């Protein structure tokens, strides 16, 4: 019987929320792996071209953490998988709110109840709220074996690091509905992020083609930039956006590691005991990049690792602890799919699945208030969606921005509205206009 108990501060709980939002963009289930000293959430997309791992340090991230796996000794682990949406309905937004408004919590206690002889195994989350209210959620989970993608940073000679806030600015330039992102290290001290879609149509359909956006950044704006000049590497723009938006919630630097097209690329960032690693499949013309000879032993190493980005072994950086682990089991079909050299510029297999998903569904709202206001103003002018369900109720919020809430009240002139509010003269809706005339409202 596993023992797994931990407590989260409101800040950490809200970070879990952000992590789940991000992982939710890769898959609708999230895998959990608890070890004695750390807790890892992983996600693998359905085409197995993108793998995400967020590891939380037992001592640093949690206010208390205890995990004693039922077997496996010091290297033992407890693994399970859960629906991202189920977890998100527990780890809602606004768990951390310094003003203690609705939804804010005091702390969050999580435990796993696993009984070998009973059917009821539950993942129990207790949200201890501010007014002595305790919300207890009992979630079901599925016992699964958790796999990790391998990535050998020694082979990934191309590296850069850039503040997530800057990258977030760049992705905001990208048009919607684009599929690919080409990261190109130019020769004149510039790095170009280009979002585009491969030609699918021609003739009359040409006007439906999404925008092609190229953002050229001075490499001096990077905190660190060491990439072979002329190298193109292509990943999915949707994955990139998901990663950047999450990295930006942590306000850290985004680090990229890659070797050459068709070999995996890794993004990494983190702070305060939270480390995120995303291993992505790449494409691109691998023959076009000027090849610098790689030392033979490392090349061999890269063969092994990149062939199995979704396979079941420990990550390379913790290889020393692998002794207690079961040997890697790897399906032959999967190996073939992830490891084959793909045609230059061909679409990664993720695209068909991703196209069906609503790209906007889980995006976190923009923190920039100015932009938000701009968008609200924009939507106020946009044609109304008449099919949307609408309810008419009292507006209890303190925001009385006429352009944002086009309600009946707003049809009056601005002056009359402030008059009504200032004088606190509540006017019954049943009064006749003639009765109101002398109040000076019209």
């Amino acid at each position, binding site marked *: 019987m596993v023992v797994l108990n931990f407590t989260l501060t409101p800040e950490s709980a809200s970070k879990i929320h952000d992590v789940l939002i991000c992982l939710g963009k890769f898959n609708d289930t999230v895998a959990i792996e608890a070890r004695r000293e750390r807790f890892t959430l992983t996600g693998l997309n359905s085409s197995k071209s993108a793998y995400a791992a967020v590891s939380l340090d037992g001592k640093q991230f949690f206010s208390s953490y205890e995990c004693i796996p039922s077997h496996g000794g010091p290297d033992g682990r407890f693994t399970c998988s859960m629906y991202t949406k189920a977890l998100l309905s527990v780890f809602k937004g606004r768990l951390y709110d310094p003003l203690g408004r609705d939804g804010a919590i005091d702390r969050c206690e999580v435990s796993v109840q696993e009984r070998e002889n009973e059917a009821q195994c539950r993942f129990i989350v207790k949200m201890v709220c501010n007014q002595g209210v305790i919300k207890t959620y009992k979630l079901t989970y599925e016992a699964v074996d958790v796999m990790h993608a391998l990535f050998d940073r020694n082979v990934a000679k191309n590296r850069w690091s850039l503040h997530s806030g800057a990258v977030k600015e760049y992705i905001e330039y990208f048009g919607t509905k684009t599929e690919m992102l080409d990261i190109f290290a130019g020769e004149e001290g510039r790095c170009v992020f280009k979002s585009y879609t491969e030609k699918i149509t021609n003739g009359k359909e040409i006007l439906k083609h999404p925008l092609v956006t190229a953002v050229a950044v*001075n490499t001096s704006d990077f905190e660190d930039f060491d990439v072979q000049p002329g190298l193109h590497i292509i990943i999915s723009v949707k994955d990139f956006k998901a990663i950047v938006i999450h990295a930006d919630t942590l306000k850290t630097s985004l680090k990229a590691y890659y070797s050459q097209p068709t070999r995996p690329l890794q993004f990494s960032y983190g702070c305060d005991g939270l480390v995120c690693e995303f291993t992505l499949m790449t494409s691109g013309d691998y023959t076009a990049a000027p090849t610098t000879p790689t030392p033979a032993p490392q090349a061999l190493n890269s063969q092994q690792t990149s062939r199995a980005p979704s396979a079941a072994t420990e990550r390379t950086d913790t290889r020393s602890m692998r002794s207690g682990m079961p040997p890697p089991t790897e399906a032959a079909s999967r190996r073939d799919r992830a490891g084959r050299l793909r045609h230059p510029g061909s679409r990664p297999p993720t695209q068909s699945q991703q196209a069906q998903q609503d790209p906007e569904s889980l995006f976190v709202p923009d923190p920039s208030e100015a932009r938000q206001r701009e968008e609200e103003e924009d939507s106020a002018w946009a044609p109304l969606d008449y099919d949307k369900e609408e309810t008419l109720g009292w507006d209890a919020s303190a925001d009385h921005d006429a352009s944002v809430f086009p309600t009946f009240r707003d049809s009056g002139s601005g002056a009359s509205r402030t008059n009504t509010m200032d004088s606190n003269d509540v006017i019954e809706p049943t009064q006749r206009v003639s009765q109101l005339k002398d109040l000076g409202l019209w």
Partner: protein
Amino acid sequence: MRFKASIHNVATFTKLTASLNSLGPLAWVKLGEEQICFTIIPEQGTQVWAVLSVDSIFETISVQSAAHNVINLEVPLASLTRALKSALNATSATIRLTKKDGVPVLALTIVTTTSSNAYSAFPANNDNRPDASSADDSSGGSRETIVTQEIPVKVLSPDTVAGLHEPRCREPDVHIMLPPLMQLKSISDRFTKLALADAKTGSGSVASKPRLEVAANMHGCLRMSIQSDAMSISSVWTDLINPDLDPNEVDGGEAGIADHPSTRMKLLGTADGRSKEGWATVRIDGRDWGKVMSVGRLGGRVVACFCHEHALILYVYLPSEHSDDESVLTYYVSSYSA
């Protein structure tokens, strides 16, 4: 064929394309050295013919073509709007016509400068982590980023556009300045919703086209109403302005004005809007009207011309710094017969 221009009023340009985009996905754009024309002719609904002075959007422009230095393009408005939005905070923005892989594109080049710590200006979730900002301290100065947006377009030959003509209409019975469009929009949206809800709950045979009845008189009154078996709702605005006609613009000068339908309408109706006479009425599609109202974001003066039971024409005058170069958007809204 060459077109290159630097944009000095990105905000207006963006609002213009966004408003036009609500009526149709594609615009016919006619580029000239003096004027830029945007025309939307949807299969159904309101047509827009917009004529802008070059100065209202562009700082410098150069147009060269074999056809009298005029270039006609078919432009997807959603892409253009998206591209322009990314230029809102730019230090400079230029647009030019070019070819990419054999496909003509409008390439928008934007130069932005961001101070290196701008992205940490938002204190969201940051106040509890003093070490989070230490990453920024290493880099100083400002960053210059160049963004290129490529919008696929189609070049239209002079023959293709030769057959497109602005609708002609008889002299209007009533012309009136509309109240602030946000006000008008929130009321008409509400009415449209009610009409749709009524059609849903009532007999299923009623067409799903919610009809708004809009009427105005020559005494400063505008009335918007919906009627159905179950209800009759109307809102009336009074004290609006009926602009005077310019004798130079009317056929026949002063005599033409005396014979003008609006002069006759002036004799009918009252300024409190209670009289049954003197109204020029049109019946319009509520959904379509909601799209037309999108032009309110440009913040121009709007004169509505009512041809009784026939059509409603809106002239939207863009606010401009120089009074001499006037930019006008003309909306042709047709009326259902009773």
